[in-house]
């Protein structure tokens, strides 16, 4: 694979493997051809986490697929639960009760805050600001304790958002605990606004992506918003109850790594605002459609097809599901935002960069190898 890249100028070139055994790269490798200090070309090496999800989902019924769908991206399981549950709801024409819609939005926004905290922590680690890394993972634990109380597991909620509603109701006292945790998150965000000079110097002006290139390469989410285009699936195509809530979409024009990092922090503030509004308006009632209360061994999926889009923390996620009258989906295609961010966008941005800038560019794209390989 490395022989197919362009040759570097003679005498100064060598190959560098920024690979899966590197402490700063996750489950993913990039092969770089370097001449002196400048990267001549880069080639992505995916496939370390390929589990064959699309084929696994063809052998399981919808409730079993709901349990499987939280391993699609390890860092934000509840958002991917929501995409899959919405696809099955639309294909089988299920009525979701109102209380369940509000609970789904609250859990999805909590998961978005938790994912952006990891982004902030790891980006600080990559650029040399170690205190930020430790504070981020300390504050993330408050949200994981909330997940343990409501769903029964700290990281994997085992299909909490399932077709038909949610699996369990909030226990007593959950509402006050959520408000206390949101106050702590507000306190953490103020801490970040103490500008750290090391982070600013390493991230400003690095990895610039213009709007036309971003749309041509398929970027979505914070990467596209950092280049100047104001678009968000929650506003363009509202799902669940997002059309009744009031929030803003942060945009920056520069397109460098610092702009994308700033958008992550602003999105956390908007998520806190959304959760407070949803908690105030939470109605009483059931949390699941009565025929889906006990897990069903065999259902009848009608013939048809559906394409559902959502906004997860990293960009635009989509599920294309085809039913043919049996009890298992005939085809379930999953589109993740990282499939485009990690292969075309990364190879384009790393060309011509210096070696010392590679971690800042790499972590500013907020990548998760699990939903690239599926």
């Amino acid at each position: 694979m490395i022989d197919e890249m362009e040759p570097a100028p003679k005498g100064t070139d060598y190959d560098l493997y920024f690979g899966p055994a590197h402490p700063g790269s996750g489950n993913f490798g990039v092969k770089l051809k370097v001449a002196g200090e400048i990267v001549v070309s880069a080639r992505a090496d995916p496939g370390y986490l390929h589990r064959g999800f699309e084929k696994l989902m063809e052998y399981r019924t919808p409730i079993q697929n709901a349990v499987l769908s939280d391993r699609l991206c390890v860092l934000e399981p509840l958002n991917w639960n929501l995409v899959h549950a919405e696809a099955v709801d639309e294909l089988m024409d299920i009525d979701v009760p109102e209380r369940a819609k509000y609970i789904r939005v609250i859990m999805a926004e909590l998961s978005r805050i938790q994912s952006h905290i990891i982004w902030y922590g790891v980006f600080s680690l990559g650029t040399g600001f170690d205190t930020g890394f430790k504070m981020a993972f300390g504050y993330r634990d408050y949200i994981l304790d909330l997940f343990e109380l409501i769903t029964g597991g700290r990281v994997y909620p085992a299909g909490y958002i399932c077709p038909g509603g949610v699996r369990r109701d909030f226990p007593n006292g959950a509402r006050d605990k959520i408000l206390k945790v949101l106050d702590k998150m507000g306190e953490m965000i103020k801490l970040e606004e103490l500008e750290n000079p090391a982070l600013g110097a390493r991230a400003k002006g690095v990895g610039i992506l213009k709007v036309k290139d971003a749309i041509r390469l398929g970027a979505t989410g914070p990467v596209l918003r950092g280049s100047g285009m104001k678009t968000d699936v929650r506003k363009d195509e509202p799902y669940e109850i997002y059309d009744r809530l009031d929030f803003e979409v942060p945009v920056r024009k520069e397109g460098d790594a610092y702009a994308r990092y700033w958008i992550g922090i602003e999105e956390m503030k908007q998520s806190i605002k959304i959760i407070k509004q949803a908690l105030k308006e939470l109605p009483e009632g059931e949390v699941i459609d009565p025929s889906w209360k006990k897990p069903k061994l065999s259902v009848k999926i009608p013939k048809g097809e559906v394409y559902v889009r959502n906004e997860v923390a990293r960009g635009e996620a989509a599920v294309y599901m085809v039913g043919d009258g049996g009890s298992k989906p005939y085809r379930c295609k999953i589109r993740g935002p990282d499939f485009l961010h990690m292969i075309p966008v990364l190879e384009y941005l790393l060309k011509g960069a210096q070696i010392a800038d590679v971690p800042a560019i790499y972590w500013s794209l907020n990548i998760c190898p699990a939903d690239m390989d599926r």
Partner: protein
Amino acid sequence: MKLRIIPKLFKNLFSKPMTVRFPHESIPIPEGYRGEHAYDMDKCISCGLCAKICPNRAIEMIEAPEDIKDRYPKTYPKIDLGKCCFCGLCEDICPKDSIELTKNFFLSTFDPTNVIKYPTPKVEEQVNG
């Protein structure tokens, strides 16, 4: 020199640390946590629904061992904890509530034969006369 960091410094100096000293102290585990399975053989009716709903095929229905076969003639579930993902679907679907998930999560072991749980009846307590 930035002086606005000094009040924050004093506040952090006199507040509690974020961590606890495990295993001497630990934070309380809430109700509804999904840990190890607790199985009651007397309530089980051998319908086999738990084996059919498990997404990872971690449950298999086997016959009881020889010495208790007269009291328990049908097939009973054997759970492989290495394949289980602790989702709780077997607990939700059981019509007689004979599988329950407890709060125990200390399941790591050096011995691979400990990973499989065979169905055993509850031991009766002996009262010392």
